[in-house]
């Protein structure tokens, strides 16, 4: 468990902490804006973006629907390449396998490139527990490891750190005061981590895609550290989520078109490496031993669930974070889990599949649908957030005040007299708070809303109060409908309903 996950209990409390941090809010907004416009530009430059997204969805859905076949094919081919393949159903199993390899190798240091799966497993802590030092080598990951924190963005993990904070962290590591300009700071990290690459006993990577037909793993990155940890150390361990599979290298073109453009707006990441087994006979570099740990940890629970199976299509680009009004407001740590933003809000409860652990994460969304629109493989994330809320309510887990509020609403709205009296009370109550038609004061029952927003004052005359007048006007002005109009309308509605039932395109994969 990271500090970020334990210091504050609820999403609301963590969000409030984040909202007090001005740099965090500005930086998150600036970075997500930059990534979002880069993505839109890259999609325009590539052209036919919808066709690419659709093909991406088709390939991912097809693979997930036949995951048993492709995973088996991958494992057999990876072994034929000389890799050692391991299956871990739980986080604990994955940790045990990695610890066993590290102990067997007598490893003291593990040089790691970016891997969200290892974050999910809290693998760094597990390695430290057996006296092995894990060292993050992606610049952003290195910074937050020195700070003792966890990533707050899938693509830019140190999005929440200021240059001053980075300089302080690296200076502490250097044992001298470093200048705060980027070349000096990055230069120090390069020198320090170069020693790590050259001396680490084990190199550890994540896996963006795994090619079933050839048993290859594919890693996308910009810095070169993933190439380092898969080239220099004698032993390589790669952690992969079991759903990372695609059938062929040809399919990789679609993923390589969608992933970098959606993540950062790049045509391709600087490095895309396909690794097929350990070094070959006679090779002068590359690992002598390659272990691939295939991790389930809740993923397979989505299979066969019509509402959540498409969650496994995710290619971890972070585009949904960059467009999410909630993420942009509170940053990644407020979600309190490895994955943040809309994808994190769904992944966390879905992977646990334990209704008691479904906390308020799914509520941290405005259901505006921007996430689904940005998703390069068209995952209907906002629908999934609604399914989560529904399941939570079905399990009787909605908050008592919310249930009470709904009951009170029903009682007031169902009775004209009560509604009239409630309105009167409201107008009276808001009088001292209203300015220019809005309420900004952060007190009373509206405080939860007005802390970050303004609330419009009640209308001088409610719709219900105006209804008697409106009804009279309507009766005067509406001419009787022309003969046949209502029949035509009904016919049109019927046709539309038929079309919708016939058009189940979403699950075509």
């Amino acid at each position, binding site marked *: 468990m990271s500090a970020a996950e334990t210091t504050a209990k609820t999403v609301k409390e963590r969000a409030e902490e984040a909202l007090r941090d001005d740099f965090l809010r500005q930086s998150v907004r600036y970075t997500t804006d930059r990534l979002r416009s880069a993505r839109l530009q890259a999609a325009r430059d590539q052209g036919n973006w919808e066709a690419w997204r659709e093909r991406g969805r088709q390939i991912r859905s097809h693979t997930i629907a036949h995951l048993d076949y492709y995973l088996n094919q991958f494992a057999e081919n990876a072994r034929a390449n000389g890799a050692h393949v391991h*299956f871990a159903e739980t986080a604990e199993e994955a940790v045990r396998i990695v610890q066993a390899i590290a102990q067997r190798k007598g490893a003291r240091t593990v040089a790691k490139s970016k891997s969200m799966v290892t974050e999910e497993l809290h693998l760094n802590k597990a390695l430290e527990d057996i006296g092995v030092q894990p060292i993050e080598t992606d610049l952003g990951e290195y910074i937050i490891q020195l700070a003792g924190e966890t990533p707050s963005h899938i693509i830019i993990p140190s999005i929440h750190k200021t240059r001053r904070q980075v300089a302080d962290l690296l200076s502490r590591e250097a044992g001298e005061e470093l200048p705060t300009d980027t070349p000096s700071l990055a230069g120090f990290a390069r020198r320090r981590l170069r020693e790590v690459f050259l001396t680490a006993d084990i190199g550890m990577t994540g896996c963006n895609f795994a090619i079933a037909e050839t048993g290859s793993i594919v890693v996308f990155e910009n810095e070169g550290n993933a190439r*380092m940890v898969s080239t220099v150390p004698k032993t390589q361990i790669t952690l992969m989520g079991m759903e990372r599979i695609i059938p062929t290298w040809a399919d990789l073109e679609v993923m390589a078109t969608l992933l970098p453009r959606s993540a950062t707006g790049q045509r*391709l990441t600087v490095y895309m490496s396909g690794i097929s087994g350990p070094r070959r006979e006679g090779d002068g570099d590359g690992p002598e031993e390659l272990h691939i740990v295939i991790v389930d940890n809740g993923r397979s629970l989505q299979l066969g669930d019509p509402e959540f199976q498409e969650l496994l299509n995710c290619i971890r680009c972070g585009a949904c974070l960059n467009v999410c009004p909630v993420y942009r407001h509170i940053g990644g740590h407020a979600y309190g889990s490895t994955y943040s933003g809309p994808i994190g809000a769904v992944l966390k409860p879905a992977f646990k599949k334990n209704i008691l652990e479904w906390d308020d994460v799914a509520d941290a969304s405005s259901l505006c649908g921007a996430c689904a629109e940005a998703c390069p493989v068209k995952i209907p994330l906002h629908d999934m957030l609604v399914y989560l809320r529904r399941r939570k309510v079905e399990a009787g887990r909605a908050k008592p005040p919310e249930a009470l509020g709904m009951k009170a609403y029903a009682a007031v709205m169902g009775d004209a007299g009560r509604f009239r009296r409630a309105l009167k009370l409201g107008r009276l109550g808001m009088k001292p708070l209203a300015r220019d038609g809005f309420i900004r004061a952060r007190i009373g029952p509206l405080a939860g809303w007005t802390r970050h927003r303004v609330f419009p004052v009640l209308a001088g005359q409610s719709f219900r109060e105006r209804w008697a007048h409106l009804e009279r006007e309507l009766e005067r002005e509406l001419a009787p409908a022309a003969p046949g109009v209502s029949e035509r309308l009904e016919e049109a509605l019927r046709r539309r309903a038929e079309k919708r039932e016939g058009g189940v395109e979403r699950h075509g994969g």
Partner: protein
Amino acid sequence: MADEKHRQWLAELDAESRRKQQAVLDGLAAKLGRPRVTERPPHPFRGAPDFWNAYELTPEERIERFIANFQAVGGHAFRLASLEEAARFIADKARELGASAVIRQDEPLLAGLGLESLLTGIDVQVWNDRPEDNWTARAANAGLGVIVADYAVAHTASIVTLSAPNKGRSVSLLPPALAVIVPASRLYTRLGEVLARIDGMGRERLPAGIHFISGPSRSADIENDLTIGVHGPGIVYALIVDG
């Protein structure tokens, strides 16, 4: 002795993994509500959409596009008239960078450049020509790596390099600068054209490392400020030559 014990340990792990594999895959099939799929399923959506597969640039356009896209990400790309010109370019850059050592892949095309005679006073290493040496350390100490692209892609401005006993992955990774000879005949329009060739090789003939390199190493992890050359080479020259 120790090796034998280690092999035995690995064999035990593998046996355990195979048992587990069947249980895990049976579980996946059960969740999907059907028996295990053991025959290759029809894959109607393989690869890029048709409109994209029809996209092809002329050889001239490919060169122009590669150069423009490579420069856009901070790389240096030039079209040179001959290999002799490329050899002179590389020798000039090695001196300009103040490299005390240069390391190149052990390929006939690179041997033909005659860097050894052009770079008097600079140590020119040839990858893995004495297998007992520590070649990673040699690459780490070189100021410039020199390779030939196995393939290149115009649309993504990518250089593709395949590992082999005579072609180290370290040569394109550890030195702070990299020079790549790109024969124009190996330059394709789309990424998919190269990927189809990799599919075509088949698993048995794949090298351990297939690396797509599209510009200099970069990071924007410190306050979004772009920095070049974090871990991999910060200076990359792509030299396109005819043939």
